[in-house]
């Protein structure tokens, strides 16, 4: 019996504890509306994939509730799987099967009759611009083609909600742009709800209606990209002073328009209402205090800044070498074993 509770994706105080001691996800709550593109950002090990696994009926939460399209995941796992599509971080297409066969088999695993499955496969092949490669083995596909095939496989049963776990990992900029244009088109045409984790903040900024930032298993910020950037309170000016110069924190803080100041490795990261107004004032103030300014940057707030604000770390420092390395390694292994399997 189904247990319907409203909403597209709802997480209520989700907790996942591994081996009784590692709290990978620690009381995560959010609500994703139908048709929304929701970005889930966080450093490596923050709990992103664990959260996706709990929402997509892959992992049982230690406590809390996950609801998909009104169904409680832990009670209706199989029905939830029928309503969602999942594009995993790593490639899951079967290299020994053609693109078309991958799609036809995937359709069958959702109980779609053979004829209908074949028709859907054909339509998706066309939609994903894979017609020329449809009857080639998936192991011969480029990274971008593989991702498009993954997307097609995830859509063959016409899900209402799509989970994308690092979907563009390892793709070149052109491949990433192409992938997102497919998602945008799908969203526009079908009103699909999309839940995405990504390491590319520019993607999150342009594609997501709302974003949640997770760190140490807890959500530290939620809002639209613009809301989150606005919360930073304007521009960010980074000033670098000459080596050995005295601490300028006390000089910079009182300047007009300064919201906050952080000192990092001889640089001063100053949040202010307007960077253009602050820079001449700050340079002059430092000069008067005997510290020459050797470098200045002014940034409009970006999600990088938002990330830094809420996690205390540069996003690029966290950008997944482990995840990328894993993808590259798997591609190499696939290549090496491709002929033998």
């Amino acid at each position, binding site marked *: 019996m189904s247990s319907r509770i409203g909403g597209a994706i709802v997480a209520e105080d989700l907790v996942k504890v591994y081996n009784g001691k590692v709290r990978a996800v620690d009381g995560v709550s959010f609500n994703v509306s139908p048709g929304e593109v929701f970005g889930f950002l966080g450093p490596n090990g923050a709990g992103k994939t664990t959260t996706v696994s709990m929402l997509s009926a892959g992992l049982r939460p230690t406590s809390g509730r996950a609801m998909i399209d009104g169904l409680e995941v832990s009670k209706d796992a199989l029905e939830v799987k029928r309503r969602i599509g999942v594009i995993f971080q790593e490639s899951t297409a079967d290299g020994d099967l053609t693109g078309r066969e991958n799609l036809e088999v*995937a359709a069958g*695993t959702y109980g779609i009759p053979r004829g209908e499955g074949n028709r859907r496969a054909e339509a998706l092949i066309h939609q994903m611009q894979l017609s020329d490669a449809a009857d080639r083995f998936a192991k011969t596909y480029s990274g971008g083609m593989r991702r498009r095939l993954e997307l097609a496989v995830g859509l063959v049963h016409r899900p209402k909600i799509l989970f994308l776990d690092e979907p563009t990992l390892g793709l070149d900029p052109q491949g990433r742009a192409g992938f997102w244009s497919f998602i945008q088109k799908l969203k526009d045409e079908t009103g699909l709800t999309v839940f995405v984790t990504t390491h590319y903040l520019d993607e999150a900024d342009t594609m997501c209606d709302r974003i949640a930032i997770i760190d140490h298993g807890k959500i530290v910020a939620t809002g639209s990209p613009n809301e989150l950037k606005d919360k930073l309170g304007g521009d960010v000016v980074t000033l670098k002073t000459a080596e050995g110069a005295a601490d300028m924190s006390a000089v910079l803080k009182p300047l007009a328009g300064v919201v906050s100041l952080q000192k990092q490795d001889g640089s001063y990261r100053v949040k202010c209402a307007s960077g253009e107004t602050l820079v001449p004032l700050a340079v002059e103030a430092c000069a008067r205090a005997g510290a020459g300014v050797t470098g200045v940057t002014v940034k409009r707030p970006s999600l990088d800044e938002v990330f830094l604000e809420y996690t205390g770390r540069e996003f690029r420092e966290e950008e997944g070498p482990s995840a990328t390395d894993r993808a590259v390694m798997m591609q190499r292994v696939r290549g090496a074993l491709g002929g033998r399997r």
Partner: protein
Amino acid sequence: MLRELGALTRREFLKIRRNPQALFTSLLLPLLYLLLFGQGFNINPAAALPPGTPPLVAHQVLLDYFRGAPNYYSYFAAGMVGFVAVTATLFIGANVIFDKLFGIFKRTRGTPAPSAAVFGSRLIAGSAQPIALAFFVLGLALLFAHIPGLSGLRVTAQVSALGVVEVFLAIVLLSLMFATLFLTFGILLDVPQTYFAAVNLLNLPVLLTSDALYPWGSMPVWLRTISQYNPVSLAVNVLRETFFGAGQYPFGPGVYLLGLLGWTAVLMGIAIFLVSRALRPLE
């Protein structure tokens, strides 16, 4: 359930078809055994009898030594059928482990396909190969009997239609049983090395405590006793009794088939319990 099973089984057979090297290698092993081992090892205990032993006595010695088979090759060929039904299933669990490593299994598990369809599809494809191979071995051994200079399988009993069905069932049950066993290993284990270690640990004791290859007459009593309960021996007994007559066997083929069915049912029950836990929708 049937659509999911059908789709996943189609995938398994496509993969078998796409890997002709593996198919060729699986044919090569029994071929080498039939062409080299069986021909070279074709021992004749009657040769050790003193000169002047009456032919009837010599014949009886042979029958006792090879449980009714007219020569070692015929005895061995029936044993080889059981042997390949085991060896051809060894790697089906490894395919599951590789599919886990390559993310393919994760994709399947992300679908609502029931665990019975996931397990069943691999079991069907995984036991089809040994069944086909067992009949290939049987056909080849029968063919060799008609090629001058080669020993072959000589069927000395009248084989009834029921006998053919019993042989078929013995091969199917044995293949199914070992496919179930190794497939369960593959689903439960995640590391190829652990899988191969487990398979090796099991494979040799199973084959070496059966009477698939040893002449019955040369086996010590304790080994004969153990081999009576070995599923490979049970299947091979059905074949030998059907091909060479019932004189040397305490029970009819139906009893051995029941024993084999018991083994298969027990292993299948354990497998269903373990696999349904391992593949439950939420980990």
